[in-house]
C-alpha cells in the first residue's frame, strides 16, 4: 500500500510481509526524495523464552530453545549446548563436534533451499510465490524441493526429524547414527551438490540492482573450514574476540516499533550485519575448492557488499554444506561414543554458532544443581534489523524515480535479502508489555 500525506509526503506500508518467517510489517515515510521514517515493524507476539528458562534444568535448553524457530531449531540446540557445556567446563569429543556439524549442514541445506527457491527466487523471476512460479518453471521448483529434501533427509537421519530434532542433548547425542544409515544418504547428497552448483549459475544470472552497503560484518571463524557449528568471532574491521566476550561487545536495546530487541556492536550507532554475506566475506578463503570455484564462476569476489546478491552467497553455501556433509559421512566410523557426561556446575557459559541467518549467541547462568538462573539469547535477525532499515532508507532515496508499485516490491525484496526470521527475533525478556 502506498499513499500521499496531506503535507506532500508519502507513506509506503506493507501490513503483512509475505515469504518471511513470522509476522512483520514495513512502514516507510518519505518527503521530497528524503526518507523521514523507516521501520521494520515486528508485531509477532513475544513468547518470553528467556523468562521461562529460569528455573528449568540445564539439560532442557536444547529441546526448549529449539521451539523458538521451526526453521533453524538446530542452531538453537547447538548454541545452547555449547553454552551449557562451557558453563560446566566440559569439552565434547571431535566426533561429537563433527556429528553436530553434519546435523547443522542438514539445517543449512533445508533453510537455504527454502529461502532461495520458495521465498527469494520468485522476486527475481516475477512471481508471487514458488507455487505460481512452478507453472512456468517446473524444473527449477522441483530441483529446489529435491535439494531441500536432501537436507531434511539428513536431519531425519541424524536428528530424528527436521523440525525440532529429538536426538540432541547437552554433551552430544542420544544415539549416533550408524555408518550404514549415513551412507544411505550419499547418492541424494551427491546429486543435490551437483544441482547446487547449477543453482549458483542460475541465481548468478538474475538481475541485481546496484547497491553497495558499507556495513561492518560479523561472523564466526573456525580453526579450520567454513564456520558452521562453532568458532570465535571476527569482524570486517579487524576485530576478533572469543564467544565468551560477546556480551562485552554486543549490546541489545529496545525500540518502540518492534517486539524484537535491536543490537549494537561496540557501542557504534552504525548497523552491523550477520549472515551469509558476512560469513562469506570473512571466510571465503575457507570454502572447499568446489564451492570456491562455484563462487568465482558466479563473479563473487572475496567480499560481497550487495545485499541483493546474498542469494548467490546462499547458493554457494549450499554447495559447501553438501560437500562438507559428504566429507563427514565418508570419514565416519562407528567407533564414537554418542555423548560425554556433563555434571552440573555453578557458573556462566557462552555459546555461539552460525545459524543459516547468522551468528546466534546464547548465555546461561547455572546454579550448582544445574538450575538455570539467567538466560540470554541474541538471534541473528535482531542483529540485522538496523541494517534492514538502513537498506530501505538507502533504496527509497536512490530509487525515488520508480513508480510506487515497483518501489514497494523492491523494498519487500530488500527485506527478504536478509531472510529475516521474525519468530526468532521476538523473544524479549521484559514481562511488562506497554502498548500505550
Amino acid at each position: 500500500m502506498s499513499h500521499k500525506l496531506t503535507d506532500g509526503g508519502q507513506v509506503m506500508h506493507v501490513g503483512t510481509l509475505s515469504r518471511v518467517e513470522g509476522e512483520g510489517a514495513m512502514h516507510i515515510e518519505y518527503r521530497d526524495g528524503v526518507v523521514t521514517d523507516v521501520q521494520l515493524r515486528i508485531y509477532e507476539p513475544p513468547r518470553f523464552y528467556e523468562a521461562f528458562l529460569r528455573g528449568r534444568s540445564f539439560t532442557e535448553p536444547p529441546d526448549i530453545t529449539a521451539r523458538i524457530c521451526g526453521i533453524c531449531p538446530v542452531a538453537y540446540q547447538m548454541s545452547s549446548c555449547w553454552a551449557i557445556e562451557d558453563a560446566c567446563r566440559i569439552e565434547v569429543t571431535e566426533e561429537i563436534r563433527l556429528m553436530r556439524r553434519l546435523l547443522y549442514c542438514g539445517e543449512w541445506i533445508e533453510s537455504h533451499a527454502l529461502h532461495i527457491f520458495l521465498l527469494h527466487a520468485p522476486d527475481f523471476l516475477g512471481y508471487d510465490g514458488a507455487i505460481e512460479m512452478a507453472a512456468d518453471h517446473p524444473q527449477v521448483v522441483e530441483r529446489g524441493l529435491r535439494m531441500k529434501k536432501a537436507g531434511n533427509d539428513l536431519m531425519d537421519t541424524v536428528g530424528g526429524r527436521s523440525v525440532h530434532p529429538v536426538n540432541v542433548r547437552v554433551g552430544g547425542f542420544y544415539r549416533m547414527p550408524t555408518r550404514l544409515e549415513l551412507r544411505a544418504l550419499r547418492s541424494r547428497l551427491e546429486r543435490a551438490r551437483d544441482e547446487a552448483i547449477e543453482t549458483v549459475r542460475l541465481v548468478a544470472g538474475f538481475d541485481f540492482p546496484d547497491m553497495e552497503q558499507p556495513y561492518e560484518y560479523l561472523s564466526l571463524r573456525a580453526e579450520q573450514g567454513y564456520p558452521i557449528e562453532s568458532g570465535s568471532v571476527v569482524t570486517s574491521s579487524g576485530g576478533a574476540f572469543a564467544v565468551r566476550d560477546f556480551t562485552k561487545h554486543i549490546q541489545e536495546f529496545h525500540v518502540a516499533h518492534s517486539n524484537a530487541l535491536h543490537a549494537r556492536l561496540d557501542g557504534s550507532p552504525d548497523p552491523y550485519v550477520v549472515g551469509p554475506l558476512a560469513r562469506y566475506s570473512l571466510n571465503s578463503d575457507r570454502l572447499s575448492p568446489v564451492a570456491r570455484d562455484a563462487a568465482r564462476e558466479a563473479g563473487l569476489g572475496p567480499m560481497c557488499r550487495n545485499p541483493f546478491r546474498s542469494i548467490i552467497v546462499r547458493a554457494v553455501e549450499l554447495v559447501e554444506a553438501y560437500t562438507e556433509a559428504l566429507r563427514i559421512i565418508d570419514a565416519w566410523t562407528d567407533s564414537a561414543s554418542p555423548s560425554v557426561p556433563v555434571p552440573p556446575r555453578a557458573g556462566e557459559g557462552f555459546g555461539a554458532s552460525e545459524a543459516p541467518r547468522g551468528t546466534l549467541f546464547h548465555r546461561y547462568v547455572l546454579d550448582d544443581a544445574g538450575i538455570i538462573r539467567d538466560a540470554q539469547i541474541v538471534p541473528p535477525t535482531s542483529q540485522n534489523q538496523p541494517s534492514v532499515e538502513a537498506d530501505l532508507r538507502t533504496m527509497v532515496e536512490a530509487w525515488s524515480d520508480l513508480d510506487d508499485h515497483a518501489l514497494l516490491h523492491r523494498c519487500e525484496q530488500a527485506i527478504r535479502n536478509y531472510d529475516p526470521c521474525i519468530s526468532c527475533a521476538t523473544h524479549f525478556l521484559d514481562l511488562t508489555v506497554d502498548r500505550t
Partner: protein
Amino acid sequence: MTTTHSHGAEHRDTHHGRPTLAVWKFASCDGCQLTLLNCEDELIPLAREVEIAYFPEATRAVVEGPYDVSLVEGSVTTPEEIERIQHVRAVSRRLITIGACATAGGIQALRNFGDVAEFRSIVYAHPEYLSTLSRSTPISAHVTVDFELRGCPINKHQLLEVLAASIQGRKPRVPTHSVCVECKRRGNVCVTVAHGTPCLGPVTQAGCGALCPSFDRGCYGCYGPQDTPNTVSIATRLSELGMSEPEVLRIFRTFNAASEPFRRESERHEPDPQQASRGEEVPG
C-alpha cells in the same frame, strides 16, 4: 465441493471447483506451517488439488475468503489475536488447528504458571488486556475447532491425511492411542523396561512414529496426552526411576503444559499446594 470467493488484490487466477486452503499464524515458531512446505514430494500435486488461497509464508498472492479449509498454527496470546481468530473462524468452512501451540497453548503457556505476585502487579497496571496477555490459550478456547492435529511439531503424513480427509469430507484417520503402540509396531525394545529410562510414551498420543525411543531416549510428550492417560501411575513410575519431584513437574510442563491431564499432573508435584490451579485455562 463448491466454493465462493472473490478475487484478491494480487492478480491470480482462481479455479472454481477446487477447494481453497488458507494457512494462518498466531504465536508460534513457524515449524508446523513449515511442515506443509516440507512435503517436498507432495507440495506441487497438492497445489493442483487445492487452491492455496492464503499462505503469507509462501506467497504474496491473496485470494479473499471464505475458505474451505483453514489451517491455524499458534496460540492466542494478545488482544488482537482474540479478534483475529474470530475473523478466521468466520471465513473458514473447516478450521483445523496444527500443532501443540494451537491445540494446547504451546511452550508459551508456561507463562500461565508464572509467579502470581509478578502477574498480579502486571494485571493491576493494565487490567484491560494483561489478563489475556498473561495467558497463552489454544484456539479451541475461543472458537469452535473442527479438528485438532497434535504434535510439536506435527507429522507431515498426518497433515496430508487430515487435508485429504477434509477435502474428501471424511473423518481423518489419526489414532489417539499411546506412543507405546508405535514402539511395538516399530519393534523397539522398551527403553523403560530394558534400560530404566524415564519415558512419557504410555501417556502420550502417537503420531511421531515413536521417534525418541528409536533414538534410545524416553518420550518427552510433545504430542500431548493420549485418549485415556493414567498420569498418576506414570508419575509414580518416574519417581521410582529416580526422578525428583521438580523433575516430574517439569517433564509434564513443556510443550503441552496447559493440556488438562498434563497440567493437573504437573500441579500435583508443586512444592506449595497453594500454587496449584494457576495454569487452568481461562478463555480470553
